């Protein structure tokens, strides 16, 4: 212990304190502060980069989910539209069919009516023709029959004969 105290060099102690404190302040200004700042900055940069990458990944995922959703919706809509179109088509076809049927029936009806009326008209015409014809025939016959006395008498007699029978 005594040797230790005797060996204690006060000059070295002072030099050490002066140099060391000077070194701390010099290094603080020229080394530690810039080093720690640079390292901090770098770490912040890395942290931010990681965070933004994570965010981008999330956004991407969201976007993808959105896309998926939109696609799904579009598909649904398309399906609906197709279904609607099909229904409409069927309805239209059915409507047209019904209409055509009704129209056809109506036309048939009309045709029938027309045929009937034409027939009637024809019949009437025929009757007229027949009656005129028969009248003219009868006229001719009568004219022919009544042209001589003998024939007239014969006819009267015949008719009278007929009446007698009755």
């Amino acid at each position, binding site marked *: 212990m005594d040797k230790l105290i005797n060996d204690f060099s006060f*000059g070295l102690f002072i030099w*050490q304190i002066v140099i060391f404190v000077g070194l701390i302040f010099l290094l603080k200004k020229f080394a530690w502060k810039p080093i720690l700042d640079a390292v901090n900055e*770098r770490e912040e940069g890395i942290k931010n980069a990681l965070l933004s990458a994570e965010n981008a990944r999330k956004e991407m995922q969201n976007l993808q989910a959105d896309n998926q959703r939109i696609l799904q919706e579009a598909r649904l809509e398309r399906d609906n539209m197709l279904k609607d179109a099909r229904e409409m088509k069927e309805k239209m076809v059915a409507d047209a069919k019904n209409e055509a049927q009704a129209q056809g029936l109506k036309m048939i009806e009309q045709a029938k009516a027309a045929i009937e009326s034409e027939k009637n008209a024809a019949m009437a015409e025929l009757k007229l023709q027949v009656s005129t014809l028969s009248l003219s025939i009868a006229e001719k016959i009568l004219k022919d029959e009544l042209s001589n006395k003998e024939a007239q008498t014969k006819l009267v007699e015949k008719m009278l004969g007929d009446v007698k029978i009755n």
Partner: protein
Amino acid sequence: MVISNKPLRFILVALVACLPLISFANPEEGSVKVKTEAAHEVTEEAHAEPTDVKSKIKEFINHHLLDAHDFTLSVNEETGEHYGFSLPIILWDNGLQVFSSSKFHHGEKTAEHNGNYYVLHHEKIYKTEADGTLTEGEHGHPTNATPLDLSITKSVVGILGIAVLMFLLFAGLAKSYGKNNGIASGAGRFFEPIVLYIRDEIAIPNIGEKGYKKYMSYLLTIFFFIFFLNILGLTPLGFNVTGNIAITASLALLTYLITTFSANKSYWGHIFWMPGVPTPMKFILAPIELLGTIIKPFSLMIRLYANILAGHVVLMSIIGLMFIFKSWIGSTLSFGLAFALSILEILVAFLQAYIFTMLSALYFGAGNEEHHHEESH
């Protein structure tokens, strides 16, 4: 931290292998009948000058552990020539006295400057009369006056060198961020993870997310300062800076001052008036707690000093064994042992820097702790 037990195991094996050699070095003649050629040599060498080599090594180690006023890399024992360079001596003795350490001739001569005479004794400068005699005190230390020694010693050179190195290294690292888009380049790249480790594993867990920033400069500086100086101590340049109590004392003092001046109200409240204990106990606890604040940095000082000092002593002793054995088995083994220990010392160099920083952070954290249970607002 997981410490691999492989080097430890190796050291144990090497130690056990060395045991018989050590016993040969101090043989009891009667008991050992059969000796190998190598053992003969060892004993002969040991017998020839047994105390000389050992005491020389001991003196060398003791000398190494002290600070030095000149930078000596090696000494030629035969010619007494020192290879190295002198360092400036700065004394405060009735005014500033500056001269070169070459005047002392490595402690062999009395230096004269401006009419004052100085003697370098065990790397301590004493003021003497012209004849350069030291009067011995009761503890074996000279009682001569000691002027305030502000010399640029070997340790100061080491501190300055490391300070410059740290400044260049970390300023370069700081600059490389700007040049390279926020990514470190060059040698700083190796140290950036350590800086981050100190921030994330030492400062933030111990001090807290809120207040850690103001201590970062101190913690980073002290970690790298101790780490580099510990590593410097393992180089053959022969520095022993962190194993010097003046250095560790100044570091511990700074930790103590920062803790004391940055502590909040609740820290002092817990020291002087411990909440939650009976009133008489508070009077007993206050001096204990107050003593605790001083013991904590004191333990920091002793821990670093003792660890590094012990590492140097053990390592140098084992290296010294090589010169005592002077046999191919013993010297090889002690070389292997020294090698393994050096690797262990690198781990210790890191560990002690880590512990010092960690405990400093812990004390700062204690001074900054928020105690929610007693806060009224």
